[in-house]
């Protein structure tokens, strides 16, 4: 395929993916916004007012970036895993397999679709958060780059889950038993400086901590993790997960008989 044809193929997958989640916005966009609004009300307003400051900020202001990032992570993942598995289950992944699209473009199309949903939900949650707090972003470049790159990490992870999944149950196991605990323990609600040394060390094994803190730095200018370390971890995850996804598609695992 020429570069122009490759671009058209990529754009086609992206449009299809965006239309897919936009068509069912009541299922894809609204629920995370409602969930995050409840977090803002309960943790931020009701409980947060009793907690006091965290790292020099009102508790509500402190948790807003983490909650936005939590919505981005879960939605990027959910979009790709459900879409890719749906394509497999209903066999319309074959529409792409019989075409000359390289596997790298199939990955790029699905992942960009996941990023699009992550950003769409992230924007909605940010708008809702503006009702509870005054947002004064510290560094827009860090905010935008972190949200896109983190979204890419979890979209890739969702795609790999989609390749391995053999039933609809398999697409909810990782979000329930891995993603949610890691996100809650990833410094969304607290600074790890509050933890004993051992648990601080353990927390640093959690990649989500790096992503949440980089994003928080973009909003508040404070972080438990050096910015370069966050970008390095995110970069490494993108490269490794992309390599695994490409290997799986090239091998035909789960998609070719």
């Amino acid at each position, binding site marked *: 395929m020429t570069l122009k044809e490759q671009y*058209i*193929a990529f754009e086609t997958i992206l449009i299809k993916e965006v239309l897919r989640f936009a068509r069912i916005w009541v299922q894809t966009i609204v629920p995370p916004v409602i969930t995050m609004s409840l977090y803002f009300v309960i943790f931020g307003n009701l409980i947060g007012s009793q907690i006091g400051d965290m790292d020099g900020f009102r508790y509500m202001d402190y948790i807003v970036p983490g909650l936005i990032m939590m919505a981005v992570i879960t939605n990027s993942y959910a979009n790709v895993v459900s879409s890719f598995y749906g394509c497999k289950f*209903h*066999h*319309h992944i074959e529409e792409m397999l019989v*075409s*000359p*699209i390289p596997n790298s473009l199939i990955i790029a199309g699905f992942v960009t679709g996941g990023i699009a949903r992550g950003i769409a939900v992230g924007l909605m949650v940010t708008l809702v958060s503006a009702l509870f707090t005054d947002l004064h972003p510290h560094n827009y470049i860090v905010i935008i780059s972190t949200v896109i790159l983190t979204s890419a990490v979890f979209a890739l992870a969702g795609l790999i889950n989609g390749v391995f999944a053999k039933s609809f149950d398999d697409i909810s196991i990782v979000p329930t038993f891995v993603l949610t605990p890691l996100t809650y323990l990833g410094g969304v609600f607290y600074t790890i400086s509050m933890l004993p040394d051992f648990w601080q060390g353990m927390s640093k094994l959690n990649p989500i901590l790096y992503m949440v803190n980089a994003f928080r730095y973009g909003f508040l200018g404070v972080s438990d993790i050096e910015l370069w370390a966050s970008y390095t971890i995110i970069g490494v995850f993108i490269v490794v997960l992309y390599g695994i996804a490409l290997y799986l598609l090239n091998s035909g695992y789960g998609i070719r008989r």
Partner: protein
Amino acid sequence: MSHALLIEKLGKVYGNRFEALKGISLRVDEGDFFALLGPNGAGKSTLIGIISSLVTKTSGHVKIFDYDIDKDFPAAKRLIGLVPQEFNFNVFEPIEEIIVNQAGYFGIPRKVGFERAEQYLSQLGLWDKRRCQARELSGGMKRRLMIARALVHRPRLLILDEPTAGVDIEIRRSMWTFLRELNKNGTTIILTTHYLEEAESLCRNIAIIDEGKLIEHTSMKRLLTQLDTETFVLDLMSPLDALPASLPDCLHRIDDTTLEVEVSHNESINYLFAELSKHGIEVLSMRNKTNRLEQLFMHIVTQDSAA
């Protein structure tokens, strides 16, 4: 004549060690209308899956218009259009979008995709339904949608895996007309079907596979000449209690108003009518008992299984 498809010693063993294809070699010439027949589980869909990249082969070589799928599958894929046996589109998408997206996967701009969607959906009688979700279509419409989708990138080789399964006779005939026209305009067509009348009516060459092996590969004409007898059913004007003993042995009474006669190809049947007239038996109408190809197909497959 150059080939559209060249297969050499193609083998496929699935993960459960089931050997679906056992070294099949096959050639389909450019411009041909080719029938690929075989009983259920013979390996037809596996063969088609390998050609269209949905199944990975275990051994052998496949060339599509000289493009070796091991060396340049993307180039080969551009030349193939596939109409699979199972519906494999997103049932929640509008049908026009399904066609335009398929064009996009081949690098065709959306504007051109929409133009071609209009062309093929109109030709296949689906243009009025373009805004409908695919799940709202009838079975026959879904089959036609898959044909339109397979044609959107203008392939030179169209592979149809049971395209008329479950389609009513009127639509089936209109699909035949469409496919004949397509073939006349230069598209090579490979057809698998369980309606042998369809294969006999449309195809010039034929291959029969059974249990993963090629058991026949010839022209339709040559194959049909192998059939040395044909059975006709005669519907009688008036009921007949018993067949007169003096009538030829090849005649059999089936019921009060039906007789059957088995005649060889080089035998005239005029004398039979004369004999029947002598006994005052009037024939109202006459028809073939079975489709000729069906008769041969059963003969070949049964013989192969016995061997």
